[in-house]
C-alpha cells in the first residue's frame, strides 16, 4: 500500500515502529480475548473471577485507537471527502492537500499537549481507579499518550514534507502522496484485490471464488 511519508530513513523508522505497535495491539486484543474467556468460564463453571479484566478492557479501546492513528495516517486511511476536491485544478488541490495535512498535524500536536496534561495531572493527584485493581491512572494514560505521541510525530513529519513540496512547487508529487486515497487504493486497502491489474486475480489470491456456481 502506498504511504504518504517521503523516502527517508526517518520515514522508514517511523513506519517500522508504527507497524510494530499495530501488531502488538493485535496480539493484545487476542490475549485479552483469551483472558475474557477464562474469566467467563471461571465465573460460570468454577465460581472464580479474575478481577479486573473488564477494567483493563475499558482502557483498551482508547489505547488501541490512539496507536492506530499514526498507522492509519501512514496508510492514508483517515476519512476525507474527495467529492469536490477531485474537481479542482492541480494547484488548488495541492494547496488544499497541504492545508489538510498541516491542520491535521496541528490538531495532533494539540491533542498531544492536552493529553500530556491529563497524564501530568494524574501523576500530581496520584489518581487511582476506584476499582478492585486500584490501577494508578497514569499507567494506562501514559500508554495511551504514547499513541498520540506517535500520531503527532508522524503527522508533523508528513506535514513538513507537504510544506516542502508545496514551497518547491512540486505539486504533482504533493497531490500524488497527500491526496485522499483513490478509490482503487481504498478498495485494495480493504480487500487486497488489485482491481486494475487482472494479473492479481490469480488462483493464489485470497478470493479464488471462481468455482462458486459450478
Amino acid at each position, binding site marked *: 500500500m502506498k504511504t504518504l511519508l517521503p523516502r527517508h530513513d526517518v520515514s522508514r523508522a517511523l513506519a517500522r515502529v508504527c507497524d510494530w505497535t499495530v501488531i502488538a495491539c493485535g496480539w493484545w486484543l487476542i490475549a485479552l480475548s483469551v483472558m475474557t474467556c477464562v474469566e467467563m468460564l471461571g465465573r460460570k463453571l468454577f465460581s472464580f*473471577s479474575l478481577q479486573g479484566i*473488564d477494567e483493563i478492557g475499558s482502557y483498551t479501546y482508547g489505547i488501541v485507537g490512539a496507536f492506530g492513528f499514526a498507522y492509519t495516517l501512514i496508510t492514508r486511511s483517515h476519512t476525507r471527502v474527495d467529492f469536490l476536491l477531485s474537481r479542482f485544478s492541480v494547484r488548488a488541490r495541492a494547496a488544499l492537500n497541504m492545508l489538510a495535512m498541516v491542520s491535521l498535524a496541528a490538531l495532533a500536536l494539540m491533542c498531544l499537549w492536552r493529553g500530556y496534561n491529563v497524564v501530568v495531572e494524574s501523576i500530581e*493527584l496520584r489518581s487511582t481507579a*476506584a476499582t*478492585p485493581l486500584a490501577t494508578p491512572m497514569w499507567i494506562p494514560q501514559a500508554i495511551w499518550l504514547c499513541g498520540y505521541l506517535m500520531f503527532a510525530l508522524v503527522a508533523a513529519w508528513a506535514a513538513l514534507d507537504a510544506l516542502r513540496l508545496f514551497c518547491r512547487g512540486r505539486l504533482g508529487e504533493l497531490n500524488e502522496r497527500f491526496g485522499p486515497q483513490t478509490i482503487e487504493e481504498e478498495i485494495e486497502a480493504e480487500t487486497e484485490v488489485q482491481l486494475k491489474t487482472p494479473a492479481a486475480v490469480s488462483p493464489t489470491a485470497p478470493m479464488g471464488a471462481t468455482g462458486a456456481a459450478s
Partner: protein
Amino acid sequence: DNAKLRVAGNLVATGLIQQTKEQPFFENFAKNTGLPIDADYKPMDVLGVKDADGLRVLKSGLFDVVTLRLAQVSRDEPFFLGPDIVGLSTDYEVARKVVDAYRDAFDKRLQERHGGKLLGIYPFGPQVVFCKVQINGLADLKGRKVRVYDQSLAKFIEKLGGIPVTIPFGETQQALERGVTDCAITGPSSANSAGWPEVTTHFMPIGFQIALNAYAINLSKWNAMTPDQQAKLTAAFRKFETEVWAYSKELFDDASRCNVGKEPCKTVKKFAMKDVPVKAADEQMVREALATVSFPTWSELCDKSYEKCSATWKQVVGPVVGLK
C-alpha cells in the same frame, strides 16, 4: 442583568433527587439565594463530562459550581471517600454525624488542593442488597456472585466469601436476569427505576455505604464575592442541603417499602420482593468490616496521596464511630 454561574449538575440518570431538588434549586438560583446571580445549570451526563473528572473541571474553571460524586472523584482524591467507606455511614443518622465531623477537613483539602470551596454534602441513601437467590443474612452471600462498584466493597464481599464482579450499572439488570451475577448492591430507589426488582427476589435493606455527593464552587469565583454574598450563598446551600437530606430519607424509606410491596408506596413502582430482615449479626459484620477491611484498604491508598489522610480521618471521624 444578573451574573452567571456555570453549573455542572448530577447525572439525570441518578433520578429523583436530581430532578425534583437539584435542578429546581439551580434554575431558581437568584430567588433561592437572594443574590443577583443566575445559574446556567446542566447535568454532567447531558454535557458529556465524566463524573470522575468533577474535580478537574472545577479546578480548571470550566465550571463555577460542580456536583462532586464522591465515589467517582475519589479517583483523583481518595480523601473525599473518607466519610463514605464501607461500613461507616450505614444509615442517615450516623452519616449525618460523620459528614458534619468531616466537613471542615474536606473543605480545607478542597481549597488547598483543588481550588474549590465546599458548599454542601448530601447522601443518595444507603446502598443495599438485591439477590435472585434465597438469602437470610449476609453470611449467605458466601459463594455467590455479587455485583460491586468499587474496591473496598469488592474486598468486603471477598471477606464474606462471595465473588465480587464489576458490571456497569446499565447492564446490571440484565446481568441479574441472565445469571451473570446472583446479587447486586445499589440504592433501593435507583434499583427500582432500573427494574432490578423484576429480576430479583430478595431485598435486604442493610446499608454498606450511603453514596455521598458534594457541591463545590471554584475558589477564585468564591473569593471574588463580598463577605455578604458569601454568607448568603452559604446559608442558601445549608438550607438546600437540609432539605435534600430529608427528601433523600423519605425516598429511601418509600422505595424500600415499594420493593417489598408495603404501603405507602408513592415514588416508585410497587413490587413484592421478600424482605430479608437485618439481624444484629449482619450489622456486626458490616461494622467489623470497617475496622478490618475497608479502613485499612482505603487509608493505605489515601495516605499515598495525602500524608495526613488517615490521621485526619481518625481525628475527626474516629470519635463518632468509636474507632481509634
